[in-house]
């Protein structure tokens, strides 16, 4: 199986430091003064040349945030964050704002090149193949996937600003708007105003409210009625600046009968201090529309002893606003020191459908508390949750989920499957499912298993010729197979590699 082999080769090349995106880019940046107050917010808003209503919205959020408390219900532990000791805005210094890629700081281009993210359109991901069909189909030699060239449009967010967005013109031809949210505020303020904060209200939770006050950039997508977005859209987030929080805001609107698939990826330099990342993502699917949102989260997880790493406190929610709409979340979570994240679906439209597919891997001293909420409001709404948690090292991995069927959600159905896999005996896996059914016709099914990669299993594989790393990779890939298959094919291979790299050093 070539993917496993590649994985192992890659694992070998990385010796001590497993995290290969930990380098730092040395560039000058433009920062807001340290700390948080009305002036910081005015500074950010002015930098972006925002309309007055946006500034007012932010200031209102900030006032409300000051009355809120940091949540403590998640199974994560971290020292108190001093919110006055952070920078809330950092942007690469530039003259007048790059008009084309040639004006972008070459250091930044180099950073994205090192990360494997193509910013020049002609360098986009070429011919990435799905992992060869492993099921031994009768069709002899049926191994090559779709070798056709596939293009992916990228929005690259570096610290607090978007530095480049590719394929904009081509997307515009299809009527698809794909741009930094700061730009959308200039060009399509009415769309932003209509939808911003309608899925995650300003006061939703501590971190979302903070984000509402200080968010700096993120992606904006609007797909007009009946349009099937002609390519994958993706945003690539990079935190570079020291002591800087990243607060991105993403807003995706799929108008009636449209379809879009979107992927976000993230990395950060390896540093001793912890860094805060508090994002908000809002998805809106109108009648018959479909949004597929995938995440490959690979923020710096901290070192072997648990020093450093990203605190990832993220609010992601999708609103199936129209009948027969569909939103599906797929996430591969391998990074961050702390993950606090529950991508959710509000199933408002009748016959709408929400899906959550998750692979959450924790190793070293990582703490993951993640899951989903499926809120069934409309009739005959369907949700499906498949969660695979893998805990290794000294990590703690919790699945936390809520499925609720409202009084009016006649015929609501949910299926949940939560599996946990433990590697070694110093880690923990926990499953916390909440179920609320307020009408008798709702059918909610829940399955959960916890298993362990046993020495016996590894020995069995090794007896057949696999090294220990190959054996772990094989067993884990088998465990996550159902979810991996839901990722867009461009990323499935990358995801498979990442899984193995994350588990490097988890045995022995």
């Amino acid at each position, binding site marked *: *199986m070539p993917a496993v082999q590649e994985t192992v080769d890659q694992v070998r090349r990385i010796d001590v430091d497993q995290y290969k995106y930990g380098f730092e880019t040395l560039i000058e940046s433009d920062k807001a003064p340290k700390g948080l107050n009305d002036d910081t917010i005015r500074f950010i808003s002015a930098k972006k040349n925002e309309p007055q209503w946006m500034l007012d919205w932010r200031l209102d959020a900030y006032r409300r945030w000051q009355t809120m408390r940091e949540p403590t219900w998640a199974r994560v532990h971290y020292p108190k964050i001093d919110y006055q000791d952070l920078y809330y805005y950092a942007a690469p210094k530039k003259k007048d704002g790059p008009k084309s890629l040639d004006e972008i700081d070459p250091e930044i281009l180099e950073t994205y090149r090192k990360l494997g993210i193509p910013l020049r359109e002609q360098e986009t991901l070429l011919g990435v193949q799905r992992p060869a069909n492993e099921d*031994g189909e009768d069709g*002899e030699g*049926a191994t090559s996937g779709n070798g056709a060239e596939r293009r992916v449009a990228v929005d690259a967010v570096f610290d607090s600003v978007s530095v480049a967005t590719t394929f904009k013109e081509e997307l515009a031809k299809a009527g698809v708007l794909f741009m930094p949210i700061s730009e959308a505020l200039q060009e399509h303020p009415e769309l932003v105003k209509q939808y911003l904060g309608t899925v995650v209200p300003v006061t939703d939770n501590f971190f979302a409210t903070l984000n509402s006050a200080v968010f700096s950039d993120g992606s904006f997508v609007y797909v007009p009625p009946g349009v099937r977005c002609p390519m994958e859209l993706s945003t690539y987030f990079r935190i570079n600046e020291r002591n800087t929080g990243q607060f991105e805001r993403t807003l995706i609107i799929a108008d009636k009968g449209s379809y879009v698939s979107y992927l976000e990826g993230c990395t950060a330099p390896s540093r001793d201090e912890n860094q805060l990342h508090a994002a908000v993502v809002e998805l809106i699917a109108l009648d018959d529309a479909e949004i597929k949102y995938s995440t490959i989260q690979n923020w710096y997880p901290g070192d072997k002893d648990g020093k450093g790493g990203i605190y990832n406190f993220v609010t992601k929610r999708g609103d199936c606003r129209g009948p027969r709409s569909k939103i599906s979340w797929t996430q591969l979570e391998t990074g961050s020191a702390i993950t606090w994240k529950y991508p959710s679906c509000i199933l408002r439209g009748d016959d709408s459908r929400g899906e959550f597919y998750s692979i959450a891997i924790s190793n070293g001293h990582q703490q993951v508390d993640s899951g989903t909420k499926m809120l069934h409001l409309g009739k005959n709404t369907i949700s499906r949750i498949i969660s695979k948690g893998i805990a290794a090292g000294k990590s703690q991995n919790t699945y936390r989920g809520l499925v609720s069927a409202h009084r009016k959600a006649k015929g609501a159905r949910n299926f949940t499957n939560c599996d946990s896999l433990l590697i070694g005996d110093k880690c923990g896996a926990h499953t916390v499912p909440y179920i609320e059914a307020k009408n008798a016709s709702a059918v909610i099914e829940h399955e959960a298993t916890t298993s362990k990669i046993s020495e016996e299993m590894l020995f069995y*594989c090794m007896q*057949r*010729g696999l090294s220990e790393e*190959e054996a772990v990779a094989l067993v884990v890939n088998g465990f996550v197979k159902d979810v991996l298959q839901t990722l867009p094919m461009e990323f499935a291979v990358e995801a498979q590699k990442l899984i193995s790299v994350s588990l490097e050093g988890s045995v022995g």
Partner: protein
Amino acid sequence: MALLEIKNLHVSVDGKKILNGLNLTVEKGQVAAIMGPNGSGKSTLAHVLAGKDDYEITEGSVLFEGEDLLSLSPDERAAKGVFLAFQYPLEIPGVATMMFLRTALNAQRKKRGQEELSAPDFNRRVFDAAAKLGIERDMLRRGVNVGFSGGEKKRNEVLQMALLEPKLAVLDETDSGLDIDALKIVSDGVNRLRSPERSFVVITHYQRLLDYIVPDVVHVLSKGRIVRTGGKELALELEAKGYAQYQEEMA
């Protein structure tokens, strides 16, 4: 030179002594049967040969083709041609048998500096071998041993052996759990692989198996050592008299 040479092997687990000065030589091309009471150390011997952790080897040596086997990791031993058909094969959910076989074969080939097999070539080999063992293609698509019956698991072990073409195959009670027809199919599978270049250590409780796989030599293992060695008629004698005469105290 013998293929396998075990000298004065002492092995303990958790401080408990299990192999106690075991000597055993397996010649190239030889089929050696090992019989012995429950708990006498047969599986322990098989695991130690394959390189399982948790066993403390306090004394003795094991040479494979004249080389020290004990210093190698399990996967290195596999690549050198040591194969163990497990008494209790493990299940690996989500990993299709077909993929497992390909991963294993290619891992071994790579360690030996050989090319990976092309997919059509590989598929042909597997389907041929499976057909001979009466293994349905549908089973090859299922997770390794997941939901397999006891007999199917054993057949799957023999399929892996056929595909990996080891120099030394240790079969740990591969006959237990097989119905009469399956016993015949599996034995035929083993017999087809017999060659002057390949040796077998066949661990069994039943003389019946040795009617199908006729051994060159039969060893009796009791209390952690080989206490008697003879021809295939020794198996018949054991069947008649049992192990009582070998049950003296461990030295």
